[in-house]
């Protein structure tokens, strides 16, 4: 029996260029790149140096503070370059893929008979632990802690997000295997959320507590769902896994192979044929975007969604946790009297000569222009309109900015991740970097409180 959750506060940002539900095999990349920066807070220790031949699923590096935590290669081939930055920090590990892929065989895992410890050990060794994240702090889960529950959001409400119902189709067996295994790691429940009117493969899984969610974005954010279902208190931990990563975990458990394949949506207003591609983690984005076609010379390529993803160059790579690529126009142009003339082509929560409230179903072609300059916090009350958590967003951000740990703790810092502040950042008239403020706050807490 599923439980219904309805989110009232939020904002659906409807953008042009939604991906059509057709999947094409992306042209195989020559080079796959893993960026350690995707694993926030991890200090990588290299296993595979340049020249090492690896199979798909063999470790490239491990986590310095938890040595059993491996990060593995998405493909088989040769490590051709380890890009380093200041103080020899590892920025990227590049693997040139073999034409014929070979996989490291981790053996079929007996989920039913396995203990929690053996599951943990197996996931850490095979690189699948990297898919398990935790709150507080929004980092890869600490395997030494036991979570009070595990959350899987099977509903993507972010603008132009890949449709989970579509990309997970036919993956029921893998999803069930992963859920059964993860379920053994918590004393609580595995909460799975699907859209209220969706037709998700996740809805049919066993051993889960199913929730149906409705309402505007950020209803699909796992943070919103945690807050409504089982909020994080001080001293508690919850884990989160995204459904596309469950598929990889499930396949590994069932077949012993780390198959980094996922279905990626390529969308956005400058894409000629927005659709889905079968690709692997770390793949060159050019393999997809040039097939989909681009209508502009001046565009922003984003791995991930437009609210939380990272900007990459056209020769960039698919982020470790991403299953979508968005291309929108760069907005690096001036606009005559842009601050006072009536606006019909942008989205606003106010009605200050802005008219998006008249056309709630219109799809907009938004650019990367900030629509204003950075200012101190001035306007109040507008963040709360799009922020469904029972937290005072501005007060929490101010506590982060002045690094007041007690205040941050009291105001709900354990419950939030940067992505929960993506919408407040979008509507902010002062153009403050909300997600960055929260990320820095979380990092400070990790450092000071641990």
């Amino acid at each position, binding site marked *: 029996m599923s439980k219904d959750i309805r989110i009232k506060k939020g904002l659906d*940002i409807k953008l042009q260029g939604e991906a059509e539900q057709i999947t094409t095999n992306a042209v195989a990349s020559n080079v796959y790149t893993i960026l350690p920066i995707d694993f926030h807070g991890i200090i990588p220790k290299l296993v595979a140096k340049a020249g090492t031949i690896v199979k798909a699923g063999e470790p490239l590096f491990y986590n310095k503070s938890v040595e059993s935590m491996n990060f593995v290669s998405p493909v088989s081939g040769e490590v051709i370059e380890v890009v380093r930055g200041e103080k020899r920090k590892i920025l990227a590990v590049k693997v040139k893929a073999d034409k014929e892929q070979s996989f490291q065989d981790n053996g079929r895992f007996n989920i039913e008979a396995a203990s929690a410890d053996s599951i943990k050990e197996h996931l850490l060794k095979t690189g699948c632990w990297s898919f398990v994240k935790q709150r507080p702090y929004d980092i890869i889960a600490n395997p030494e802690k036991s979570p009070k529950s595990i959350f899987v959001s099977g509903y993507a409400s972010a*603008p132009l997000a890949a449709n989970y119902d579509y990309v997970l189709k036919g993956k029921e067996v893998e999803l069930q295997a992963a859920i059964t295994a993860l379920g053994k790691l918590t004393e609580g429940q595995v909460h799975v959320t699907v859209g209220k009117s969706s037709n998700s493969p996740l809805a049919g899984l066993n051993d889960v507590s199913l929730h149906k969610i409705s309402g505007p974005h950020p209803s699909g954010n796992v943070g919103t769902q945690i807050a409504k279902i089982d*909020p994080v*208190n*001080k001293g508690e931990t919850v884990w989160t896994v995204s459904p596309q990563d469950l598929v990889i975990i499930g396949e590994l458990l069932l077949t012993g192979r780390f198959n980094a394949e996922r279905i990626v949506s390529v969308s956005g207003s400058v894409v000629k044929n927005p659709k889905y591609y079968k690709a692997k983690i770390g793949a060159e984005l050019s393999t997809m975007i040039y097939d989909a076609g681009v209508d502009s010379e001046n565009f922003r390529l984003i791995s991930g969604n*437009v*609210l*939380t*993803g*990272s*900007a990459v160059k056209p020769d960039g790579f698919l982020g470790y946790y991403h299953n979508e690529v968005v291309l929108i126009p*760069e907005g*690096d*142009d*001036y*606009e*005559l*009297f*842009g*601050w*006072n003339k009536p*606006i019909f082509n942008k989205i*606003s*929560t*106010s*009605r*200050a*000569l*802005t008219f998006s409230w008249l056309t709630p179903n219109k799809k907009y072609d*938004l*650019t*990367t*222009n*900030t*629509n*204003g*300059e*950075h*200012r*101190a916090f*001035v*306007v*109040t*009350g*507008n963040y709360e309109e799009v922020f469904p958590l*029972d937290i*005072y967003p501005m*007060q929490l951000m101010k506590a982060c900015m002045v690094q007041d740990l007690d205040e941050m703790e*009291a*105001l*709900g810092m354990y419950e939030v991740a*940067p992505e929960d502040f*993506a919408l407040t950042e*979008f*509507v*902010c*008239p*002062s153009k403050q*970097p909300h*997600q960055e403020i929260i990320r820095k706050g979380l990092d400070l807490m990790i450092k000071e409180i641990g």
Partner: protein
Amino acid sequence: MALKDKLHDLKVKYSGTKMSPVFNAFHTFLYAPNEVTHSGGHIKGADDLKRTMNTVIMALVPCLIFGMFNAGYQHHVATGEITTFTEGFFRTEFWTWDNLVVGLWKVLPLVIVSYVVGLAVEMFFAAKNGHEVEEGYLVTGMLVPLIVPIDIPLWMLAVAVIFGVVLGKEVFGGTGMNILNPALLIRAFLFFAYPTWMSGDKVWVHGAVERTKEIAAGANVDAISGETILGGLAQGKDLGYSVMDMFYGFIPGSVGETSTLLILLGAAFLIFSKIGSWRIMLSALLGAIVMGLIFNFVVDQEWISQGSKFYTLMSTEFWQHLIIGGFAFGAVYMATDPVSASQTNKGKWIYGFLIGFISILIRVFNPAYPEGVMLAILLMNVFAPTIDHYVVQGNVKKRMKRLKAKTV
């Protein structure tokens, strides 16, 4: 080369220099900047602070225009040039060119001085501290001429603006950091530094002060009082104006505060555009009504004698308090300043209510300066962070309770 490119080249040229913020202020006035996002959210909403402030200015423009006509109208009534009085908002003797000319002549210099001096101070600090010229003064600069008496000497206004911007805002770090409402601080400075120009019965109508001097010197001119309704009530006089006159705003008072009708229109626009807080406006209204009812009750119960100096103001019908004096203007345009008001939604209810409540309290019990809304707002500005603190603590306690319930 197009203007856009020329300005861009100049921006690049001045980048990093002391003049950069000043140049950017002019540049961004003409063109929304070409800044793009870098990380986090790649798209941004349409609103910025300039648009927000511009919306408030638009809501103030009707009050400004009405204030200009009213300046001329009050002057011409006082000098006896207007003798016929018709009914209705669009009465012919009010909307005349003659009235407007007086208004333009007296009010425009106030607007110009307010903006030129205020923005000069802002630009000086922006250049000195290397931050951008922020938009807060766009609204303050429009509010200031609307809340002063018509004949206030321009140099006094200039001094007050400098005081208000420097000590009310810049010392705290600029727009968004101030504790008190800068426009009200400017008015409070004038009020306490030059009381003869800010209160009493001779400053609200253009020319009244000069004529008093002439009368004193023995000239045979019809004396006019030119006092505000509140001033009159405080002295135990009758209202002297019809309710509709007071509602429409055909009464003496600060330049832009007299027309409750236009203030309500402005309020409707601010609430509709979601720029002004309806919570503060509504709760201020409720607070004033409650206090007014309490005073009316005291009078009804005959707990106060007719001889008391508070009797006339106390016995004024509670709803009349809403349309006389600066209450409506204060509640709609001043109390809702997001920086100095309470920032939490619950806090806004408490903050607004207390402003309304205390406004009428001061109005009745301080007959020397019967305009209470300014002091009430400044007082509550100081308490706004405390109100927010307790509201936020309520949220914190809820979180702690959740944890305790879990532990048990």
